C-alpha cells in the first residue's frame, strides 16, 4: 500500500513508440560506432610508471555503458519508474562494481612496490 504511485495501472507512464524508435536508432548507431572504433588504434596513456591505460577497451566499454543506460532508462522504463526501482538498479550496479573493483584492486596492488 506504500509507495504506490498510482491507483490503477492506467497511470503507468506509457512511452511513445517514437521514443522507442529513437532509442533503437541510437543503439544501432552505437553498435556501429563501437565496431568502427575497434578498428582504430586509439593509443594508450602512461599514467605512471607501470600503469598504462589503453584507450580502445575504455572507449568500447564507455559505449557499452551508454547503450546499457539507454536500454535501462527507456526500454525498461526506469526513467519513468518510482524511486524504488531506480534505487534497486543503482544498488545492483554498486555491488556489481564492488565485486569487480575490489577483486581487481587486490590483483593490481600485489605488484605495488615491484615496478
Amino acid at each position, binding site marked *: 500500500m506504500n509507495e504506490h504511485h498510482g491507483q490503477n495501472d492506467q497511470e503507468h507512464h506509457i512511452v511513445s513508440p517514437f521514443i522507442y524508435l529513437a532509442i533503437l536508432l541510437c543503439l544501432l548507431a552505437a553498435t556501429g560506432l563501437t565496431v568502427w572504433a575497434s578498428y582504430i588504434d586509439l593509443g594508450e596513456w602512461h599514467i605512471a610508471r607501470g600503469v598504462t591505460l589503453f584507450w580502445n577497451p575504455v572507449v568500447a566499454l564507455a559505449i557499452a555503458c551508454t547503450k546499457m543506460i539507454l536500454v535501462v532508462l527507456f526500454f525498461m522504463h526506469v526513467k519513468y519508474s518510482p524511486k524504488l526501482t531506480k534505487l534497486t538498479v543503482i544498488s545492483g550496479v554498486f555491488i556489481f562494481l564492488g565485486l569487480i573493483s*575490489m577483486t581487481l584492486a587486490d590483483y*593490481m596492488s600485489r605488484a605495488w612496490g615491484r615496478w
Partner: protein
Amino acid sequence: MSAATIVSLPDQATARIPKMNFLSKENGLLSWLLTGDHKRIATLYLISITFFFFIGGALAGLIRLELLTPQSDLMAADTYNKVFSMHGLIMVFFFLVPSVPATIGNFVIPMMVGAKDLALPKINLLSWYLYIVAGGMMLYTMATGGVDTGWTFTTPLSTHYLNSNVISAGLAVFVAGFSSIFTGLNFIVTIHKMRCPGMTWFRLPLFVWSNYAASILMVLGTPVLAITLVLVVLERTVHIGVFDPAMGGDPLLFQHLFWFYSHPAVYIMILPGMGVISEVVSTFSRKRVFGYTAVAFSSVAIAVFGFFVWAHHMFIMGISNYAALVFSLLTMLVAVPSAIKIFNWAFTLYNGSITFETPMLYAFGFMGLFTIGGMTGVFLGATGTDIHLTETYFIVAHFHFVMVGGMLMAFLSGVHFWWPKWTGRMYPEKISQLAALITFIGFNFTFFPQFILGTLGMPRRYAAYPPEFQALNVFSSAGATILGVGYLLPILYLTWSLKYGEIAGENPWQATGLEWQTQSPPLTENFPEIPIMDHEAYDYEWLARQQQKEVASVG
C-alpha cells in the same frame, strides 16, 4: 501510563484453540504440498531443517568422538574429512541459512507487516521445493560416499585432487542457493509492497528490519556463489582451468568469489537471529527496544559493509598486503554495528519489568556468547593476529560461538517465543528453561576449550593431532554430549506439547507485534481484516489501552 505495562497473562483455562485456523483449514498431504500459505510453508521448512540439523548434529557427534583421542582410531582420516565436510555443508546451507528466515521469518513477517501472505506465495513454495531437491541431492551425496572438500570447496583440491562427490554436493548447494535467493527476494518485496496501512518503515518490528537486511545479502550474494560452483563443476567435468594454476587458472580467484558470498552469508546467518533477540528482549522486559533507530540502521549497516570485507578470509593466502589492509579496516567497521546492538539490547532491560521465560534465557545466552564470538572475530579481523590464529581451532571456536552460541540460540529462542502462536499451545516452561541452561553450559564446555586449543596452534580439520592437545579435546567432546542432550530435549517436549501443551490464547506474552493481535494459530489469511497500524512498534501502552478497552467492552 502506569497500568500500561503490567503483564497480565490471559486466563488460559478459558482459552480454546480456534476451530478455523491455518492448520485445520484443509487436510491431507496435498493441501500441504500445494499450499501457498506462508505459515504452512514455514511449517514445512521447520520440519525439514530440523531433520537436517539432526543429521548435522549426529555428524558433529562423530567429529567429537573421533577427536577424543589423538590418533585417528575411530575412523580413517578420509572418513573424518568427509564427516566434517558434510557437517559444515549441512549445518550451513541446510540448517543455519534457512533456519530463522525460512521458518520463523516466513511465518511471522507477513503478519508483522500486516499482510495476508508473502507477496509471491508460489515462489515461496518453489523455494521450499528447491530446498528439498537440494537436500535430497545432499543426502544422495552422503549416501554415495560423501564429499571431503570442507564446506569451502577449496580449489584446486576440489576440482582436481579429490574423487568424492564434489559435483553432486556442489549442485546441491547451487540449488539450495536459489532456494535462499527466492526467500530473500520474497521478503524484500513483501516488506516494501505489502505493508498494511499506517505501517511505516519506522513502525516495523526490528525482526522485519533485520530480515530485510539479511534478504539483501541473500539476493545479491548468493548468485556469485552459484556461478562459482558452476565453474567448479565445469572444471571438474570438462577440465577447464579457471581455478587450476596448472592450467593457467587462479585459485585465489575462487577464494575471492567464494568469500564474496560466504562472508555475507555469515551475516545472513546472524541478522535474522538478531531480529529474534530484539523481539524477545523487548517483550520480556516489557519495554520498547532501546534506540530503535540505531538497531534498525545497524542491521542495514551490517548488510552494506558486510559485502566489502570478504578478503579477511584470505589474509595469509597471498593477497596484496594493501588489500589486506583495506579489508581489515572494513572488517573493524562492520563489527561496530553488532556492538551497538548488544548494548542496545542490554539497555532495553533498563527500567523494564523483566521475566525470565525460556526465550529470554536463550536471548541472554545469545548476548553473552555472541559477544565472545564477535570479539574473537575481531581478533581474526586484525591482520597480525589472524596470521597466528587462522586455520586453527580458534576459528572453529569463533564461528561456533557466533553460529551456534549466536544464531542457534536465537533460533531456539524464536521457536519457543512463537511456538504458542504457531501451534496454539504452550511449551512446558520449566523443562524448557532447564534445556536452555543445559545448552548454555554444554556449549561453553564444548567450544571454549577450542579457543585455547587454537591459540596453542592446533590446526582445524585434523583427524589426528599431537597428544598434548588431548585434554582440552576431551573437555570439548564431553561438552558436546551435554550440548546434544540440550538440543534433544526441545524436540521431545515441543512434540509433546503439540498435543498436551496448555492452550496459549491470542497473546500469551503480551507482546505488541501485529502477529500477536490475531488468533493462535492464525487464520489462513492471518487477520480477519487487514489491520491498520496506528502506533509505534513495541508500544506497550497502546497494548494496555487496547486490553482495557476489551475488558470494558466485555464487562
